[in-house]
């Protein structure tokens, strides 16, 4: 099974052409891939630790090592591109100071997944990734180093696609096609959820921002006035009664 050039891939090529055209966006994209690959690698590592099947354990382990290596490749290349930017732009790439949430393989809970469903999911994920990466590889013709990263990763993705399919057929010979369909539906559902969450996030941001500027100002004035009265330094604490443990305030 090789890397397919699907219709989706052709559309992606158009959409992503402008993204990859800019060096800064290219670097950020590579760094975000690094996080995804590393997170995915850790999830697959977890699968290796959970599976009762010795062959799958070895394959998952090899796969996880590949993914972690891909993370390193993307990170290294992204960092190299970032370092090539002017000093004045570098601070913009500083990481958010709050820890991020979200992780790995589509927020999959590896502990709850059986090998059949995980293999189906991995197979489709690898296939989708290979399809996207082959598009990106063509887009970055002007950047041989980045292209080389995609070349190396694509070679591994072919192995990942093949072994996940073969192992799914081995452990679930009668129903592996059905498993793949289930995995496809599950991926679609998760994509819908992601989209829905993103839309909800945008809408809630708009509503809350409007509220912030309409409702908050008088309270802000009161809060600032109260702050001015506060003395810096120690606040002496009054002893609390036993009943204080029953309240959240």
């Amino acid at each position, binding site marked *: 099974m090789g890397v397919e050039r699907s219709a989706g891939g052709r559309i992606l090529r158009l959409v992503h052409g402008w993204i990859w055209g800019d060096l800064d966006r290219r670097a950020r994209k590579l*760094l975000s891939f690094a996080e995804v690959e*590393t997170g995915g690698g*850790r999830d697959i*590592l*977890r699968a*290796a*630790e*959970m599976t009762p099947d*010795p*062959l799958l*354990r*070895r*394959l998952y*382990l*090899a796969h*996880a*090592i*590949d993914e*972690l290596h891909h993370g390193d490749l993307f*990170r290294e290349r*992204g*960092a190299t591109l*970032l*370092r090539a930017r002017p000093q004045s732009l*570098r*601070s913009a*790439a*500083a*990481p*958010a*100071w*709050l*820890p991020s*949430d979200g*992780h790995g393989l589509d927020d999959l809970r590896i502990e709850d997944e059986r090998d059949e469903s995980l293999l189906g999911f991995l197979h489709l994920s690898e296939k989708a990734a290979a399809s996207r990466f082959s598009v990106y590889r063509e887009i970055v013709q002007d950047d041989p180093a980045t292209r080389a990263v995609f070349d190396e990763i694509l070679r591994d993705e072919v192995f990942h696609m093949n072994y996940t399919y073969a192992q799914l057929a081995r452990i679930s010979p009668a129903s592996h096609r059905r498993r793949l369909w289930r995995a496809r539906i599950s991926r679609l559902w998760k994509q819908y959820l992601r989209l829905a969450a993103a839309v909800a996030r945008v809408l*809630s941001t708009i509503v*809350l*921002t409007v509220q*912030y*500027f309409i409702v*908050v*100002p008088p*309270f*802000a004035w009161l*809060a*600032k006035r109260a*702050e001015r009265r506060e003395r*810096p*330094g*120690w*606040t*002496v*604490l009054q*002893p609390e009664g*036993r009943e204080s*443990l*029953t*309240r*959240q*305030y």
Partner: protein
Amino acid sequence: MKILGISAHYHDSAAALVCDGVPVCAVQEERLSRRKNDAVFPIGAIEWCLDHAGIGPDDLDAVVFYERSMLKFERILISTLRTFPHSWRSFPNAMRNSLGEKVWVRGIISSYLGIPRRKILFTTHHQSHAAAAFLTAPTRRAAILTADGVGEWATLTVGHGDRRVDGGTSITLLRELRFPHSLGMLYSTFTAYLGFSVNEGEYKVMGLAAYGRPTQVDRVRKLIRRTPDGAFALNMDYFEYHSSAKRSYSSRFVELFGPPRTAYEPIDLATAEGQRFADCAASVQRVLEDTLVDITRALHQETGLPDLCFGGGVALNGVANARILAESGFERIFVPPAPGDAGCALGAALYADRVYFGQPDRNVPDHPFWGPAVVSQDLLRAATEDGQTVEELDDARLIERTAAELFADGVVGWMDGACEFGPRALGHRSILAAPHSVKMRDRLNRDIKYREEFRPFAPVTPIETADRYFELPPGGVRLGRFMSGVFRVRPEWREQLAAITHVDGTARVQVLDRDMAPRLSALLEAYGRHSGIPVLLHTSFNVAGEPIVCSALEGYSTFRRCGIDMLIAAPVVVTKRGPSKVRSLKEEALA
């Protein structure tokens, strides 16, 4: 009486179970979920604790959450109001985060565990820290200091604790410093400025500080001024953490200290830029230490007590702890093995037991091993199935074999009994190696831990010989019990202990009590017979970005993919086969 403590939702969530006044088990969610600093509601940890104790949720007398979530929400809301209109970007996120889940803790606990709401109690964040530090320490009366980023409003508290002869217990917090004035946030801001992850990279700042000189102390002091009552206040013009979720330092901060480092730039200490970052780290470290020393010196004078119990994330700063011990006047400092938020789960449960329910005082076992135990048979099965070289040895042969491997410059993955509660491996989930050469340090950083070159490794040595190799002040042995202090390596041993001697001649030594980890203690003795020096390099059993391993199979998968030569979960010993060192896992899997 059975009390479950829970910490969750910010970083490092955990659960701990206290039965009849004594901890039975405690584990961080990250050890089970395998997601570093996992902050989710720790249902995995709770289930494991209940299973381990053989009880169900109905058997619990109380569930104690480690902080008052509504009070915390109040602080977030008021901080947003005070920084209006600059906080407009962070406001939607803050509201979504808090109102989405975090303020509904009582309902969440009740619905997850199916217990009545009246059984759910709340300590304050710093009460939990104080209890975790004081009620687990082998002392009856002590001054208490807690310091972290922020809890509800408090960022630092001082007080004292008393375990009375009549069995009663009191923990009295006298004063607090309130957000946004926070030593923890000051340090975290520099952590972010230096390009490290907050809540994780603070160790790196401390390690980097040794390479720098505190040339920028005067600039740091522009950020933090002392108040007449002996506390401090931050100049918020230099910070944005109270108004932004994107950046913790302001443009004025950047004007003062220069451009920040991005996470992807390596720190090259040979360059002026690298040295500037090291100097920044050294300067903020110095100011942190000075401030803590002043506060603890005043606390010592006020309480007149010889012991100090120190909790909160700031207590993980071993360099500062050593200075407090040396300069504050306290004779002993007790830092629990889990002084951060995870430890609050245990602290909250103990606080409810002693203070709310008024249960009689009990001594808490003085060790950190409250987590799941390693199952050696799992390792035996997996390694055998994979065709690794596996042996089962009795204890004496296992110790001798391991000592010989270490003496031959092998690197050993060591799993023994229950895993540690807290961020440090203290002898049950450790990577061990010979401490003698810089090559070993570099090999571990490069091939095994995959981390920055400048980061030091810690040593472990028996209590009986610790003073021979390290300059331990009075009270140093106690601070070294859970690796909470950084002390100088004696100059005459530095060359022979090059792998664990930091650039400034110090080491964060673990002083091992035989009763706490008898097998590791025996290994140190055996290694001493081989090398003449009963000291081992000792680091947590994980690779960069991953939690410390918990189960045998997690240790095994780490062993298979990094340069560890030998893996031990007594009595099972796995050695990397010769060919597998050169043949890739992929080839092996397909063979």
